């Protein structure tokens, strides 16, 4: 396991002492973790196909485990999820062109979906290689908006 993404953001993992917490299951799907120095914590966890959902300290979290990409040697995972449609919608406006340089967070395009407008932002600083969609185009989940290099 190379790392983890929480709410779409890559986060570094702390080093783990595997013996620190003793975990037991409780009815109702709860897990109780107890440490040697007497801390007792209740939490819940669900995982499916590398994606997890958890209740930790009362807060709900969603993320995914990243696996080593053996070919490139970098932590992979679904990075391209940043630049593909997550839900059906329509491209209302494209704000960049091929070969534009962008900063992380720059608005790349505006999507209209469920009667609201969403901005797709650059996941990192880099250059737009190729815009793959057109204004007015209907999008399906999984459609890629554009290609860029960091």
């Amino acid at each position, binding site marked *: 396991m190379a790392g983890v993404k929480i*709410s779409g953001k890559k986060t570094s993992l702390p080093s783990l002492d595997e013996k620190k917490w003793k975990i037991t299951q409780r009815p109702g799907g709860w897990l109780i973790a107890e440490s040697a120095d007497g801390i007792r914590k209740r939490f819940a966890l669900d995982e499916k196909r590398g994606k997890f959902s958890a209740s930790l*300290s009362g807060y709900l979290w969603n993320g995914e485990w990243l696996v080593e990409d053996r070919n490139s040697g970098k932590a992979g995972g679904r990075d391209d999820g940043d630049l593909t449609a997550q839900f059906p919608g329509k491209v209302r406006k494209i704000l960049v062109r091929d070969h534009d340089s962008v900063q992380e967070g720059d608005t790349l395009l505006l999507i209209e979906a469920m009667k609201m407008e969403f901005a797709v*932002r650059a996941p990192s600083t880099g250059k737009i290689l190729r815009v793959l969609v057109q204004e007015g185009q209907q999008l399906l989940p999984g459609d890629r908006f554009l290609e860029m290099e960091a």
Partner: protein
Amino acid sequence: MHKKVLVSNRSEIACRIFQTCREMGLKTVGILAPGDEEARHITYADEVYPVSGYLDISSVIEAALKSKASLIHPGYGFLSERPAFARAVEKAGITFVGPRAETMELMGGKIAAKELASREGVPTLPWAKIERGGDILSAAKKVGFPLLLKASAGGGGKGMRRVNRVEELSEAAESASAEALSAFGDGTLFLERLVDHPRHIEVQVFGDGKGQGVHLFERECSLQRRHQKVWEEAPAPHLPAQTREGLLSAALRLVRATQYRNAGTLEFLVDSSGEFYFLEMNTRLQVEHPVTELVTGVDLVWAQLTHAMSPLEKVFSDPLSVRGHAIEVRLYAEDPSQGFIPTPGKVERLRWPTGTGIRVESGIEEGQTVGTQFDSMLGKLIVWAPHRKAAVERMKFALEETVILGLGTNQNYLLSMANHPSVIEGRVDTGFLGKEFGGFAPVPSTEDFELLLTAKKQGLSGSKLQWNTSSTTSQVPSPWEYFANGRRN
């Protein structure tokens, strides 16, 4: 004699209306639009009829006639404020649980509503219509900056844009008009002066249709994100008595002037000096009605149905008063730390909080897939406590005990709000969430990460954690082994 109600809505609100119907001895009819087969209201309705869509008036009326329902309750959203629907219902010989179509027309056009308010001596914000092909620039200069572009035909934040300077005007107008056209089929906009740091305070009313009515006090809904309410409460905290009296009496004047029938809400903005301005009237039951129900002890759906069934009877015979404090939050399948993108998915695990002073209005069941075709509200948590501080603590407890796994939710955001000093103090305005939670990007604590990783390494993360099966992935022996061996693990 009325025996059956068709609820022309879905999910959480349909189920909530079903409860009161059943308590009143009325049979419940639910409608099912294609794509909504897993929805909760389909499970709980006494009878289900298919419709081609929740907005298809003739299809809904046909279902009502087939079912022989004598009442239709529209809930909120969908057809609840469509005059054509109210008319079609009455024409079909069915009682519409709500105001008259004429009132919807009068108060539904925001411009006409403002004009009526002015005639009744109710203050409104400087505003201007934008005529087709008219000069938006001169209208804007008349209203003054900062201003808000608003859709004439609807609300919920759609078609709204803030404009601080004249340079921003034309792009904002283009964007707002496009969004309004898509949401309401009408891209007409009007301009309204923006009050800085306003509080959104609304008054619940109930009219007898003949000019008399009552108010059920006010609600505060200032915690909004892009004009969509997230956290609502009753009563409004730290509201000057004079402002409250002014709001309540203005609301009653408008009930009288419109001869309002059944339940409705008047929305106002209150500025930092306590001055209030009428915004609009919602001629329906609102999402946040439970907070009013909890502080007044009144079942508003009961009041709506009672009046609809016996219009000459007085619904409220006892004087109404406020006791304690109630707060509601809305849970959505969206991720606030990723620009509020929708996070559809399957509800792998669902656990709602229970306990004293906790009320849940659920729109989902465990095992259901939540998509993007319909509204992504998963449910509402409402709490009541004897005073506000206790209500905030209770909301924290309720949120912490809300477990929805398998899809993204805004629970983390809501719990962070409940822990914010300004929210705890009850001193917020409508700009607060955008400002304070603009860059919301929480990360679990080191300790929480340790729990996550340890559980993962021990193979304890899975969608089925069963207590009484000897699961090979579990580290804990099943109870049968435990007792058989007589040893402690």
